[in-house]
């Protein structure tokens, strides 16, 4: 399982994406199921089988492919009772594996009240044949924001679930205090998902509607990377290290674009572990001078970010990056639009993200398309991309190492 570590990292990437803000916020059960969504999460297990989590009819469905995504088995419903499952843009169900073949699934259940939700968790102990009754992970269960969850499993089996939470905003409002943004909360399971024994806050003042980047690291800890609200509504990113009991490295500012805006960017960051030296980070910054996507290295000793490098075509709506690293090789993909197509662009680095190749087009589709993700079966790195016109696509990025 250890050699699959990069996959864990990726999990985190798998986040909830963008959004045009259209989480399914329907108001009653009859419409709960309505809308088909392209938002999926995929991941290889240690046997090289590809698993996919998607939303269908108010249910999270999990299915498996033994032929690299050409065909999937009949999906299994995770939640038997249909509910409003966040499945668009930056919101999507996540999937991850435990040390002993457990399958973990998380998602955000949207409540009737605006912006409100619960973080749900379920697991399978029988290789995906059946799933446990879903539990609400967030301990505060008021009908307020608990949304945009991310999921990561460390090499020792520790499960981390992170999300955006407005309980502190509610408390501040009740007390007549000012409070900017939301908070980042984490729940930890050390018993393979049987329970979440620990819940703690990582930071006050996060952005309200962007996916959270989170990746496990060797030793059972994880690093979390999210869009924050700095003084004066500056929407830059923070990074922190978390452990089973709480925050190990207090939040540090990791990006410095100074995008000042009272808005929901609906555009969260990506993170991948580069090695013992630190992390690769990618994010969107809408600052007026040089808006666009950026990538940088984060030194995890000094907690200092290298100068950010801009990439992608900002006039083609370049967005929603995904990162993957194996040793010194790093892959980066993102989505752009042309007059006729959605395209996935890519670039690579052979020296740990110090220098990057020219960009190249990996894939295109003529209709609606999900955001791109990078995953690996331990040998190859693949672009995982769901499209309306061309179906689900798994495209090799090149042989690793």
């Amino acid at each position, binding site marked *: 399982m250890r050699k699959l570590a990069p996959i864990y990292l990726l999990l985190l990437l798998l986040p909830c994406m*963008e*959004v*045009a*803000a*259209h*989480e*399914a*916020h*329907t*108001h009653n059960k009859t*419409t709960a199921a*309505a*809308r088909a969504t392209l938002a999926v999460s995929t991941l290889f297990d240690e046997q090289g089988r590809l698993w996919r989590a998607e939303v269908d009819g108010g249910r999270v469905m999990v299915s498996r492919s033994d032929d690299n995504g050409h065909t999937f088995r009949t999906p299994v419903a995770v939640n038997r009772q249909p509910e409003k499952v966040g499945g668009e843009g930056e919101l999507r169900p996540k999937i991850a594996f435990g040390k002993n073949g457990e399958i973990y699934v998380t998602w955000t259940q949207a409540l009737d009240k*605006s*912006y409100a939700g619960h973080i749900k968790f379920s697991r399978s102990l029988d290789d995906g044949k059946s799933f446990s009754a879903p539990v609400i992970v967030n301990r505060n269960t008021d009908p307020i924001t608990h949304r945009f969850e991310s999921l990561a499993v460390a090499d020792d089996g520790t499960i981390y679930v992170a999300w955006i939470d407005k309980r502190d905003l509610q408390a501040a409002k009740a007390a007549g205090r000012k409070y900017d943004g939301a908070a980042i909360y984490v729940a930890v399971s050390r018993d393979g998902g049987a329970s979440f024994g620990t819940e703690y806050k990582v930071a006050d003042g996060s952005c*309200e*509607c962007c996916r959270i980047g989170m990746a496990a690291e060797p030793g059972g800890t994880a690093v979390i990377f999210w869009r924050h609200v700095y003084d004066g*509504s500056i929407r830059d990113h923070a990074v922190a290290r978390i452990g089973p009991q709480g925050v190990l490295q207090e939040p540090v500012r990791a990006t410095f674009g100074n995008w000042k*805006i*009272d*808005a*929901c*960017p*609906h*555009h969260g960051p990506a993170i991948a572990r580069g090695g013992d030296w630190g992390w690769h980070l990618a994010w*969107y910054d*809408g600052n007026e001078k040089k*808006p666009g996507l950026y990538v940088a290295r984060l030194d995890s000793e000094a907690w200092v970010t290298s100068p950010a490098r801009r990439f992608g075509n*900002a*006039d*083609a*709506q370049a*967005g929603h990056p995904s990162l993957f690293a194996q040793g010194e090789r790093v892959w980066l993909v993102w*989505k752009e*639009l042309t007059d006729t197509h*959605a395209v996935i662009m890519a670039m690579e680095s052979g020296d740990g993200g110090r220098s990057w190749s020219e960009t190249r087009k990996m894939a295109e589709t003529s*209709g*609606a*398309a999900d955001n791109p993700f990078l995953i690996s079966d331990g040998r190859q790195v693949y672009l995982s991309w769901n499209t*309306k016109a061309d179906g689900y696509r798994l495209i090799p990025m090149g042989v690793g190492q």
Partner: protein
Amino acid sequence: MKRLSLLALLLLAQSVMAADLKPFHPASRTAIEQAHAGQPFVLAFWSVDCAYCPEEIRHLGALVRKRPDIRLVLVSVDGMEMKSEVGTKLAEYLPDGKGERWIFAADDPDRLYFAIDRKWHGELPRTYFYDGKGDVQGRSGVVSSTWLVEWARSIAR
């Protein structure tokens, strides 16, 4: 009884509003611009899921109440299946029914963003201010009332 009928009226008003939402397609921005050519107007994109949008819409509602010469066009980026929520929210934010009301109607919202403005990455609120003489300013995020007052002042009645 009075209360009941008031409630019924409100419910009716909301469903009428929901039904009144015009479908927004890739060519709709151009159509809106042509329909309002030569007059000042504000084209505002929002969603029920955007925590900053209620404030923006209320600001804009106050503006057009004060300045009836400025038109307001509101476009929800929520999909058609959100019609009733969108109608309910608008009734709450703009109870006097101000503004022309549209809703995204395409299965590919990314395509709509692209058609509307290539430089717009989907952040909300996103608002375009047309002075009626050919100048248009796009702004992301809640526009401050100071800026709004200045902009309105720059437009002769």
